[in-house]
C-alpha cells in the first residue's frame, strides 16, 4: 500500500507545513484517535486523547511533548493496544490495530518510564521470558540479549543477579534491551530517560540514535527533556489537554514561537506557549505522578 496522507491536525499554528508524502505504508498512522475515561458516573467522561491524528514515516523519530496529564502516556497505550479507541483508528505499517492485532503486536514494543520487571529475577531471566513471548528460542535470545546488554554497558556478570539489585539507570537499560530484543520496527519510548543520571541519559540517547541509523527503527518518543527532544526528534508534536496543539520540526517550532509570538526561539518557549504552563510546573508534578 502506498499512501500520501495529509493528516488533519487541530493546530493553532498558522504556518505549519503540510505533512510530506511517505512512500509505502506509514510506520504509524493514528487517525482522529479519541479516548475518554469515565472516572465518576455522575460526571461526564474525561477526554484523555481528543481527536489526535499523527503520521510517522519509516525510520523517523517523532517526539511527543506535553504536561503531565496531557495524554502522552494514554496515546502510547492506545498505539500499544493496551487501551481501546473510542473513536478513530491506528495502523502500524499498514496493519490495522483492531483487525490485525497480532500482526501489529509483532511489530511494536514499548519502554515506559517505570522499568517494570519481575524484580527478583535476573535480567537474563526477564529477557528470556520476554523473548519467548515474541517467539524467539532460548539460545537465540541469550546471544542477542548479551550483545544488546554489552552495547548498553552491562556486563555478563550483571546478567545473573536480581534486577532489584541494579540501579534505576541500569534497570532502564535492561528495559530498553527487553524492547530491542524483539526487533520491533516501531518502538514506543515513554519517557525512557526520566530519572536517569546524565551519563546513563546520554548512553540511552546515543543508543536511540543508533537504533534509528543501524536498525531502521521508527521511534515514537515522549519526554520532558526538551534538549533530548531537540537532539533526537525529526518532528515534535505538543499535546495539551489531550489535543495536538502543534506539530513541527524542532527548528520549525523554534521559528514559529519567535516569529508568531515574539518569544525566544527555544523549545522551552514553544512548550510553554502551547501547553500554557512552565516546564518547572510540569517537572514538579511529574515527580508526584510519574505515570502521567
Amino acid at each position, binding site marked *: 500500500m502506498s499512501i500520501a496522507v495529509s493528516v488533519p491536525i487541530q493546530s493553532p499554528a498558522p504556518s505549519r507545513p503540510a505533512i510530506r508524502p511517505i512512500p509505502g505504508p506509514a510506520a504509524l498512522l493514528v487517525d482522529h484517535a479519541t479516548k475518554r*475515561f*469515565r472516572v465518576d458516573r455522575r460526571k461526564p467522561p474525561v477526554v484523555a486523547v481528543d481527536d489526535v491524528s499523527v503520521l510517522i514515516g519509516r525510520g523517523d523519530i517523532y517526539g511527543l511533548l506535553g504536561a503531565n496529564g496531557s495524554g502522552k502516556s*494514554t496515546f502510547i*497505550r492506545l498505539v*500499544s*493496544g*493496551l*487501551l*481501546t479507541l473510542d473513536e478513530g483508528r491506528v495502523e502500524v505499517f499498514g496493519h490495522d490495530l483492531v483487525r490485525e492485532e*497480532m500482526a501489529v*503486536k*509483532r511489530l*511494536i*514494543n*514499548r519502554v*515506559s518510564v*517505570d522499568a*517494570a*520487571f*519481575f*524484580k*527478583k*529475577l535476573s535480567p537474563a*531471566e526477564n529477557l*528470556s*521470558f*520476554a523473548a*519467548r*513471548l*515474541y*517467539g*524467539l*528460542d532460548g539460545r537465540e535470545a541469550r546471544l542477542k540479549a548479551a550483545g544488546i546488554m554489552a552495547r548498553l554497558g552491562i556486563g555478563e556478570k550483571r546478567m545473573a543477579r*536480581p534486577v532489584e539489585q541494579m540501579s534505576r539507570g541500569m534497570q532502564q537499560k535492561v528495559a530498553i534491551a*527487553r524492547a530491542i530484543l524483539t526487533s520491533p520496527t516501531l518502538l514506543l519510548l515513554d519517557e525512557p530517560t526520566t530519572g536517569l543520571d546524565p551519563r546513563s541519559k546520554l548512553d540511552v540517547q546515543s543508543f536511540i540514535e543508533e537504533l534509528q541509523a543501524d536498525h531502521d527503527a521508527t521511534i515514537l518518543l515522549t519526554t520532558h527533556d526538551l534538549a533530548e527532544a531537540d537532539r533526537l526528534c525529526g518532528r515534535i508534536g505538543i499535546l495539551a489537554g489531550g489535543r495536538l496543539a502543534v506539530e513541527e520540526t524542532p527548528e520549525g517550532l523554534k521559528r514559529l514561537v519567535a516569529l508568531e509570538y515574539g518569544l525566544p526561539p527555544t523549545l522551552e518557549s514553544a512548550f510553554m506557549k502551547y501547553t500554557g504552563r512552565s516546564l518547572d510546573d510540569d517537572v514538579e508534578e511529574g515527580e508526584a505522578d510519574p*505515570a502521567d
Partner: protein
Amino acid sequence: MIALTRDARAGYAFVERNFNLTKRYFGWEVAFLVYAVAGALSVSLIGQSVGSRTLLMSLVIGAVFWNYLSVVFQSIGDTITWERWEGTLEYTMMAPVRRSVQLLGSALYAVIYGLIHTAILLAILALFFSLDLGRANFAAAALFMGVGSASFIGVGMLAAILPMMSVERGSQMVFVLQSCLLLVSGVYYPTTILPGWMQLVSRVSPATYVLDAVRKALIDGASASQLLPDLWPLLVMAFVFIPVGLWGFGQAERYAKRTGKLKRVG
C-alpha cells in the same frame, strides 16, 4: 507449523518464568510447605485421636488433595495478580501471545508445581502416620487428579478474571472463592452433613467429585469404572469451565482495555 512453534515457545515462557520465580522465592516455598504440612498433620491428628483408621485416611486424603487443588487454583488465579504486583502486566498483554496460550502455560506449571508439592506432603503424612496403602488404587486416583486438574484449571481461569477487573478486590475475591470451595467440597467431612442449599452448591465444585473418588480409590481400592458417577461430572465441568474461563478472560481483557485497568497500580 510456525504458529505452533511460536505458541509452544510462548507457553513455555510462562512455565520457565514461574519456575524461576519459585527458585528465587525458595524461602517462601519452604515456609508454605511447612505451613501445609503442619495444617495437614493438625487436621489428620483429629482422626488419630478418635482412633478411627478410616477417619484418619479420609482426613489425610482431604488435606493432601485439597492442598493440590488449591495450589493449582491459586497459581492460575494469581497469574494476573503477580503481574499487576510487579507492574509487568502491560508488557505481557502487549506481546503477541494468545490468551489461551498464556493461561494454559501458567496452568501447566501450576499442575507440575502442585504435583511436586503434594507428593512431598503425601510422603510426609504417610511416614508420620505409617499409612497402609496396600489396597489403594493409585491409577484411579491419578486419573481423577488429572481430570480434576482440568476442571480446576477452568475454575482458576474464571478466578483470574477478578484481579483483571479490580486490583485489590479481585485478589480478595479469589481468596473468598477458594474458601467457599473448601467449605462446600467435603474436604474434611461428607457433603451430606451440609445444609440442603450448600449441598446444591457442592455439586458444581470439581473438588467434591475429585475428593470423593480419590478417597474411594485410595481407601477402598475402587476402580475407575466403579467411580464413573464421579468421573462424568468432572469431564463435563472441564469441557464447560475451560472454554467459559477463556471466554470470560477475553471479555475481562476487553473491559480492562476500555476502562484503562491494565495500567500499573500500586
